[in-house]
């Protein structure tokens, strides 16, 4: 059957078409590209998609196409799963992936298989109707996380982008990326309209006629085509509106075809033949004839999936023409037909039709089924919508009401709709058949806490504890949650008390999650109350409890708390890293595994074991994280790339982060901007570095002290670099950075000791950078910074401070010997970490002041090689082997495997090595080894 065969010529889009193809071919380093075509209905977006797909198909592209549905409640990932089904005709396995990430991974795998070694072109029409899961998948793929070389071509109706459409922000964020283009498709110009009219009519067309078409159509190609056909067929149109044009067409249809077209307008496209046959009460032959007529009159198009209206504009016109009773009857017939057709029904479509048929009692089961199906696919947003519909379908006296309300509240909470969740709990609380008082208070408290209303949340937890029907189990749970909340609020004494209560209750009656939650709260509150030993032992105990329960989530949470405690307030980074890696080896599930590895990588980065950090990140990425987990890892990896000086990789990961953040995630914006500034600084792009930092300064919350510290230091360092390079320092920017530093000092004074310890080093760096910008050449602030960072056991900032200290001393021509030693130390650290840009910066300073670095000139023998050899001579042969492996960046376990000794023995050897060399960290040990080697 004719479908798109008799289209008019493509006018005025040749340039656009070529541009789109070249954008899609021009993939970024991440292997992905995207073009979003926006424009009003009928402007020719779908046509452009089709033409592009046809042009690229058969070249080195594998093409997949899908269309989003406007039923508002499509099932999760609908367009992509549809595209996959269209491709292989078979069924994609949707049954219970282990988590949301696993689902994304599975879809990516299917796409990868289809693509083979070609680039994949994913064409998505009507993206404005895409469900949340589809949007997330799109960002996941574009960020390169799916490991699919994919180019996305999507069409979006401009009308939909008004108001509050979520794609607005997504597009606003994406359009800054080099691999993304947004093409705004404008209506045809007067000349182009004339060409199109001539093309359709054939031969010559009077200029007045063509211009009348332009005036009436406003250059909308869809309307132009229709009007030009009228002109060709000698029909005189008096109507001006699209609606009238089409209604007069409908009147010309034979009666049976008329019926088909009206039915189609109520259906969800594509409408399968079997379904249509049940909806339209005609004999087989009559039906086919009617469909043929509808196709011939250019209302209906047909392809292998079924029938669809040629354009949604037509459906919109027709929908207004059908009487409500007629529409209800059509929807009922669609629903009945879908139920009658063999196989698993599409609950979403069924729910849609039964609702519009005005039969809520038939719609409800389909809606509930759709909600549960969406939850199985981790489409929480979609599930939330179904539960909302289910609420509308159940009256106050319906026996399912309480159950539906409970589910609806929880799903709203899961989607971050805290207000809605709370209002549903209120209704639940007012019902006689609802849950008990304690349960209601507990729910309300959790939702309030999630909404950031901590004061009221606290009251609700206390009420739950006081409620007469509170079971011991609920009591344990409420106390544990309350303790957790109080830790966040910094009220450690009270947190401690509630955590203790919770521990006692949970030990007898509670669940493992409550026990683990309470232990963590107890441990952190103890540490913050300056009893680190007690705190640590409680959290260690939680790990043992979790090990006994063996549940993946309990294990994951417990290990994470311990690792965070060690790397955070206790600053025992090496041990924290060890714990995190051990936890990641336990059966903890993808989410906790990647989070634990992220903690390990961060710790390794801080202690200067960059090669090892990089290896850990590779492992973490191989678990294919998604969402916030992926952002964390990408940011860590990008930090490494910047440090290593691998610019392209850094840019790729930054773009990937920006892509993922287009879907939301405010708390990662600051680290992203900091990295952007750092990268720009090394590239000498002063303006860009400044812009990133200044933007960051407008988006910092006063409680992110560490993040602000890092950002401000980056800003001042970039200004100092600009100053040194002879570029202009922006006085406004500098003034704001100084204000930020002052604010940091004030805020630090009010914060607890753990925060103080973490922030003070950055304040020192900021102060020192300011002295550099002011040309003071003062080694003292740098010396202070170096001391603090040595104490924090973080070699990079310590070495950096040492470099600047040496530079200032050399400039002032004071204490040259000490400066040379400092410079060499810094250089050894930089080379041991693989920090190439930093190392070359040190070389630059050394050359400027004619200082010979240790291995600057390989032909010149080291200053005191004998001495260094002596230093290693105190080690046994075994200890030297271990040290060599440490310097390679191997972990204790890897060393154990390599040398065929236990991990524990490696630890013992390391202890001896540290003692003999009088060092405290692996980096320092490696430095001694590498200087000697």
């Amino acid at each position, binding site marked *: 059957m004719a479908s798109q065969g008799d289209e008019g010529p493509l006018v005025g889009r040749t340039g656009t078409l070529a541009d789109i193809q070249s954008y899609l071919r021009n993939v970024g380093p991440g292997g992905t590209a995207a073009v979003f075509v926006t424009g*009003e209905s009928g402007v020719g977006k779908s046509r452009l998609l089709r033409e592009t797909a046809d042009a690229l198909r058969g070249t080195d592209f594998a093409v997949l196409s899908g269309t989003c549905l*406007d039923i*508002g409640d499509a099932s999760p990932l609908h367009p992509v799963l549809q595209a996959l089904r269209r491709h292989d005709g078979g069924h994609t396995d949707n049954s219970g992936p282990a988590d949301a990430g696993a689902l994304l991974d599975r879809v990516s795998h299917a796409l990868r298989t289809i693509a083979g070694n070609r680039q994949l072109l994913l064409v998505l029409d009507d993206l404005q*109707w895409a469900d949340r899961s589809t949007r997330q998948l799109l960002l996941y793929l574009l960020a390169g996380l799916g490991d699919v070389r994919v180019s996305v071509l999507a069409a979006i109706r*401009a*009308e*939909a982008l*008004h*108001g*509050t459409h*979520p794609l*607005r*922000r997504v597009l*606003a*964020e994406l*359009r*800054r990326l080099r691999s993304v283009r947004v093409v705004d498709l*404008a*209506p045809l*110009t*007067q000349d182009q309209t004339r060409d199109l009219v001539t093309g359709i009519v054939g031969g010559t067309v009077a200029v007045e006629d063509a211009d009348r078409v332009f005036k009436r159509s*406003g250059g909308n190609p869809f309307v132009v085509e229709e009007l030009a056909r009228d002109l060709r067929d000698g029909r005189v149109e008096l109507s001006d509106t699209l609606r009238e044009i089409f209604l007069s067409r409908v009147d010309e249809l034979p009666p049976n075809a008329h019926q088909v077209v009206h039915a189609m307008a109520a259906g969800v496209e594509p409408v399968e033949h079997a379904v249509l046959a049940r909806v339209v009460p005609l004999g087989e032959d009559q039906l086919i004839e009617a469909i043929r007529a509808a196709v011939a009159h250019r209302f209906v198009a047909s392809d292998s999936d079924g029938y669809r209206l040629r354009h949604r504009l037509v459906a919109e016109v027709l929908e207004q023409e059908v009487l409500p009773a007629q529409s209800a009857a059509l929807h009922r017939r669609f629903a009945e037909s879908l139920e009658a057709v063999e196989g698993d029904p599409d609950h979403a479509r069924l729910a849609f039709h039964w609702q519009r048929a005005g039969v809520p009692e038939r719609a409800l089961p389909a809606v509930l089924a759709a909600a549960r199906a969406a939850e199985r696919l981790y489409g929480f*947003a979609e599930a939330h*919508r179904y539960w*909302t519909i289910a609420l509308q379908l159940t009256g106050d006296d319906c026996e399912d009401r309480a159950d539906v309300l409970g589910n609806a509240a929880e799903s709203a909470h899961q989607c*971050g*709709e*805290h*207000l*809605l969740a709370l209002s549903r709990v209120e209704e639940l609380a007012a019902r006689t058949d609802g849950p008990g008082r304690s349960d209601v208070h507990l729910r309300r408290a959790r939702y309030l806490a999630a*909404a*950031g*209303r901590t004061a009221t949340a606290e009251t609700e937890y206390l009420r739950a504890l006081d409620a007469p029907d509170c079971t011991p189990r609920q009591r344990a749970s409420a106390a544990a949650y309350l303790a957790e909340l109080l830790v966040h609020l910094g009220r450690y004494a009270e947190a401690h008390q509630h955590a203790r209560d919770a521990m006692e209750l949970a030990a007898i009656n509670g669940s493992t999650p409550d026990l683990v939650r309470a232990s963590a709260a107890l441990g952190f509150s103890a540490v913050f109350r300056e009893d680190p030993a007690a705190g640590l032992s409680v959290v260690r105990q939680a790990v043992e409890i979790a090990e006994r329960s063996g549940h993946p989530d309990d294990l994951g949470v417990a290990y994470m708390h311990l690792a965070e405690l060690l790397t955070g307030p206790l600053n025992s980074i090496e041990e924290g890293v060890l714990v995190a890696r051990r936890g990641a080896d336990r059966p903890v599930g993808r989410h906790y595994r990647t989070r634990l590895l992220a903690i390990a990588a961060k710790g390794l980065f801080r202690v200067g074991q960059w090669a090892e950090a990089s290896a850990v990140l590779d492992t973490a990425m191989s678990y294919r994280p998604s969402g916030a987990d992926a952002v964390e890892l990408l940011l860590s990896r990008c930090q490494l790339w910047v440090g290593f000086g691998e610019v392209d990789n850094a840019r790729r990961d930054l773009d990937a982060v920006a892509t993922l953040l287009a879907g*939301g*995630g*405010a708390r990662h*914006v600051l680290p992203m901007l900091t990295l952007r500034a750092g990268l720009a600084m090394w590239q000498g792009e002063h303006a860009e570095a400044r*812009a990133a930092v*200044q*933007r960051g*300064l*407008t*988006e*910092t*919350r*006063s409680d992110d002290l560490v993040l602000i510290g890092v950002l401000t230091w980056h800003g001042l360092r970039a200004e100092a670099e600009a100053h040194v390079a002879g570029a202009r320092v922006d006085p406004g920017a500098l003034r*704001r950075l100084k*204000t*930020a530093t002052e*604010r940091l000092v004030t805020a630090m004074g009010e914060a607890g000791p753990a925060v103080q310890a973490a922030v003070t080093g950055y304040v020192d760096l900021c102060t020192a950078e300011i002295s550099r910008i002011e040309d003071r050449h003062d080694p003292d602030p740098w010396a202070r910074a170096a001391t603090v960072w040595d104490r924090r056991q973080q070699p990079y900032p310590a070495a950096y401070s040492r470099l600047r200290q040496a530079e200032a001393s050399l400039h002032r021509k004071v204490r040259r010997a000490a400066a040379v030693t400092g410079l060499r130390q810094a250089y050894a650290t930089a080379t041991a970490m693989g920090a190439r840009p930093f190392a070359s910066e040190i070389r630059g300073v050394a050359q400027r002041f004619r200082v010979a670095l240790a291995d600057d000139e390989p032909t010149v023998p080291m200053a005191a090689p004998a001495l260094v050899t002596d230093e290693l001579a105190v080690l046994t042969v075994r200890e030297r082997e271990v040290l060599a492996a440490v310097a390679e960046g191997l972990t204790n376990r890897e060393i154990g495997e390599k040398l065929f000794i236990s991990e524990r023995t490696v630890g013992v050897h390391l202890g001896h090595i540290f003692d003999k060399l009088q060092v405290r960290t692996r980096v320092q040990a490696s430095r001694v080894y590498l200087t000697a080697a």
Partner: protein
Amino acid sequence: MTQPIWGPVQQEMSDLLRRHPDDVPGVVEQLAGLQDVLCRVPPLLHGNPLADFNKLYLTITENVLERLYAGRFKDPAFLSRLDVEFAARYFDALRYWTEASPSCPGVWAGLFCRVPGPDQRPLPSAVAGVNAHINFDLPFALVTTFDHLGTDPIDGSDQHEDYLQVNDIFAEEIPGLRRGYLDRWQLLIDTMNGDLDDWWQGEMVEYTRNVAWRNAQKIWSIRHDQLALDKQRRRLDSTATGLGKLLLSPFADFLQ
């Protein structure tokens, strides 16, 4: 061919609007660029009614930016996103108008169509712009921002307090604008009862900004329902358009 909408500066206008600023400094830069171009639109040049609104908007945004740098908001990430999202709607409306697209919201079209003159009454025009921006754009910008940040519009929250702080900025800036233009009228009012129009102006913005917050809460609850959302959008557009017409009609002459 039809006349370019912005006359000789059409190209500059569409080049400028091709940019999509994504932070508050970028918004300030864009508004400053627009100010420059708008003052060159014939025949009214500096007397161009849109230039008056743009000037006011630029001043207010500069003020917001200074407060952001000075750390005077509780949740700067929220306010920055809101500011960018809010401005984007003004830029979008300008872009649609520049392209002669029917998508330009009615409330903005009502003001834009006055740019070529001959009517020249700066204060009602600036107020009409404020009306369009606050009554129509702001609720949607709020909802988009909350949606993006994953938080709810809750009364008394940090975000609400920051939002209310912007009322103070409006209150600070609007009398200044008025004094710039309305010496004659001010003289009259001042002899009568002092600060009546300050009160009127300040109250109006504060009042409508609160309405915008309420409207945002209303839209928030239906934001997943495309149909209800479109309906609400049309309702807000027609209400605001009506108010805008009133402000630009001879009725508002008393302002002049």
